[in-house]
């Protein structure tokens, strides 16, 4: 199944400027792994040496933060988009 992944500006150097890419996978973890395979370098930006998402990286499935879901194991179903978003200041 192909999923749309929305790419933040800070990573678009690695996607040739594309703000959205289409990636295969059924969980967030699989999709981010495939994203790194398709666009090498993204993985080291998103994950620390221990393999955990860096603390200022937020990932959303269908607009919901995966920390409220099942983290990297969160399933992604047909039609749902995955967004990668840096933390921003308050207001």
């Amino acid at each position, binding site marked *: 199944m192909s999923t749309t992944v929305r790419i933040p500006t800070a990573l678009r150097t690695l996607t040739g400027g594309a703000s959205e890419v289409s990636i295969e996978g059924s969980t967030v973890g699989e999709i981010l792994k495939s994203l790194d395979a398709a666009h090498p370098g993204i993985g080291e930006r998103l994950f620390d040496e221990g393999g955990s998402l860096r603390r200022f990286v937020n990932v959303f499935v269908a607009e919901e933060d995966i920390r409220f879901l099942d983290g990297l194991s969160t399933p992604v179903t047909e039609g749902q988009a995955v967004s990668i978003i840096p*933390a921003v*200041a*308050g207001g």
Partner: protein
Amino acid sequence: MSSRRAGIPLEALESASRLGRFTSLPEDKGETVVTFVAQLSCRECGRAYEVAPLHVCEWCFGPLEAAYDYDAIAGSITREKIAQGPSSIWRYAELLPADRGSAVDLGAGFTPLVRAERLAGALGLGELWIKNDTLNPTNSFKDRVVAVGLSKALEFGFKTAACASTGNLANSVAAHATRAGMKSYVFIPSNLESGKVVATAVYGGNVVAVDGNYDDVNRLCAELAGTYPWAFVNVNLRPYYAEGSKTLAFETAEQLGWRFPDHVVVPIASGSQLTKIRKGFEELHKVGLIGEEPHVRVSGAQALGCSPVAAAFLSGSDTIKPVKPDTIAKSLAIGNPADGYFALDAIRQSGGGMAAVTDDEIIDGIKLLARTEGIFTETAGGVTIATLKRLAEEGVVRPDECVVAYVTGHGLKTLEALSATVGPTATITPTIDAFTSAFDIDEES
């Protein structure tokens, strides 16, 4: 001192455009801009970036922060020059990332630091001060950060201001954008207090009410910031915008007679204000305005219904877990605080404390401040006062300390929170008999 063109960032902007950060370049105004900002640097990994409308490290996603040439500032800034400056945040222009000469200015800052003897007596404290930031142009501390953020936005050539807001920022961005002749798009949760909505919409910009909480609004704006060439003050202008909060520390020290307080109590939403207040005290020492090193204990205030930082602090955890906010303190209702880790570090390193107070305690805090000091604060200030009370009871805030509590927004913004518990003492017919039967008044009093 570095002197650059107002599009200093022009090369950076062009580079940013190539990277797809903007759909088109903001216009370069071709004016000279003077600041002491040397570069932006990542707070996580330390990588350096040029001065441009960037906010995230491309390597680790850490937030970028303005870094200054402190030696140059020390050679320029003096207490006397500051005293001769305007009665606003711009008296400390050398320590801000935007040029005073082209500032968007509604008169933000230099608000009263009020000695609070009655409140101190009620809480068993000694030298207690209230930084009354309700008296800013749009009645919250947000005018400090927005004045800096939009001044920088104009330097960069942006024509449209935008933000994600829990209300106070919305008021301030709408007002300052109008003052600057900019268009504005202000995004707010659709359940905001009516006062905050009206006090934003009145300035005539676009107000976008989003069905969701603040974190939803913030996520949306983070994505829109990559699509439109707008100055989102708390997204792509964040490294500059956030610096405005340092002026809360500068003013406090100056108003105390150029000395540091022993302890400050600061509300936490994203955590930015607290960390910048601490940075402000440190900078006063770095540039030689205060000779001694600061040893200011920094304590944080959160509402129990949205207390991700307090939960980490109180449980001894290094991990901040996002929450779904449920509190009357909507201006602090950020469940995923971007600067939470930095705030947590600042509190721990400085020997401060934290509390998470209930909605009832927040209302009691609002009333306590109003009824002891004559200052009416919104719910965020109620969180601060309730936390001050808790920490005083726990002995964390001590009577031998010089304490400053930051009251950052006006009570007229959140009347709904009090309307059920505050009202007329009596309702009478317009006769003397009705009055005298309602009140048993001692004529000597």
